[in-house]
């Protein structure tokens, strides 16, 4: 399984890998927002956490459709389906590799964008922490969507449509935890703990659903 993890990481940084593109997309999306809403620093700092979260959500979805599609295109998926490793484990490892290669850079880049959004230090820290905890959930949900769409031509757009509604709870609690860290009356811990719970929940459900979908998609 470490072999699979290492292979996927290598693929993501080799030529044509998606690691850089995801971060770039993230930065571009967030950088476009001030042009839309105007350079009012107070407004930006108020909507900042939400913008950074939505940017991260879109950037995660961007690379997800290739998660299984690339394996299917060159036939590797058949061999993985045949193998006696529990398929769930294979999917889980692929999700982990995808998270390390695409989502972790987003988490690391998020403080920079927080500065652009004129967010306070506490808000930046909170967004980074919630992204760190919440983005695995996005990957796991996305894996299920990617597995469903694997057999479809032009699955890319469909993955986003399938996955976005499921990702809403993650967005809600991620953003509310970030706001709770800055605005006094709201407590930070409850939404943050719920976010952790969502991630753990999807860490089980996502790979399971993806494995079942892959078995039936293979044809």
């Amino acid at each position, binding site marked *: 399984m470490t*072999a*699979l993890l290492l*292979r996927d990481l290598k693929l993501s940084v080799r030529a*044509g890998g998606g690691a850089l593109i995801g971060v770039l997309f993230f930065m571009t999306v967030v950088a476009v927002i001030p042009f839309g809403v105007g350079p009012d620093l107070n407004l930006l700092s108020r909507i900042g956490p939400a913008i950074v979260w939505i940017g991260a959500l879109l950037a995660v979805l961007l690379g997800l459709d290739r998660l299984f599609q690339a394996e299917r*295109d*060159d036939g590797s998926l058949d*061999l993985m389906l045949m193998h006696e*490793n529990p398929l769930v484990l294979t999917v889980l490892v692929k999700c982990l590799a995808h998270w390390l290669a695409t989502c972790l850079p987003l988490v690391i880049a998020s403080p920079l964008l927080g500065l652009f959004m004129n967010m306070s230090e506490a808000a930046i820290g909170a967004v980074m922490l919630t992204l760190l905890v919440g983005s695995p959930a996005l990957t796991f949900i996305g894996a299920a969507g990617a597995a469903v769409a694997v057999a479809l031509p032009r699955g890319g757009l469909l993955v986003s449509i399938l996955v976005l509604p499921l990702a809403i709870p993650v967005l809600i609690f991620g953003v509310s935890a970030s706001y709770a860290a800055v605005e006094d009356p709201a407590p930070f811990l409850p939404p943050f703990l719920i976010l952790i719970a969502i991630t753990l929940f999807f860490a089980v459900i996502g790979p399971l659903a993806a494995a079942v979908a892959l078995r039936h998609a293979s044809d």
Partner: protein
Amino acid sequence: MRLTAESLAARRGEELIFTNVSFNLEDGGALVLTGPNGSGKSTLLRVIAGLLRPERGRLAVTGAAVETGARVGDLSHYLGHRNAMKQELTVAENLAFWKTFLSGSERTAGQDIEEAAEAVGLGDITHLPYGYLSAGQQRRFAMAKLLVAHRPIWLLDEPTAALDASADRMFAGLVENHLGRGGIVIAATHQPLGLEKADEMRMSGFAGVDQGAWG
């Protein structure tokens, strides 16, 4: 080890591709599937590999070294139309990945990557990215994948497409060698593989397929 199929039938989508396919293979047995395009050769191989669920029929593998209820797919190598190798990685990285991924924890005796590359006649270029190679060379390294992890059953779908005559002979040698060590080979092909004592099953497609030359 004995691989048995009893009156298999499979469908793809709504269509029934074949029905009533039976065979029985012992250690060292080879089965060559022939027939026109669309007669269900690839589908049968995918059914045996466990990638498709058979519509009817039973598929079982039995033997002293096989635990009861083992899936055929777990004991098989499947060489499909696509090579299952990544263009961006070097040949050695590709083979090393499949070696560890397929051998799992028990490290079933497979060959070294260099040995396997020698066996397919391309020993010196494992450091090159896979994408740099020609189609024939890529196919040969896909065959080397069969050697790096040991599996008793080989399922080969058009293995020698895109290969020249010398590579054909090389591959026939590999298959003979595998059979000699008690392996089982099922191959779907248009070209003769040059196997001496292989049985041949002619698939003619559609429902109500005849049992062919299989006895």
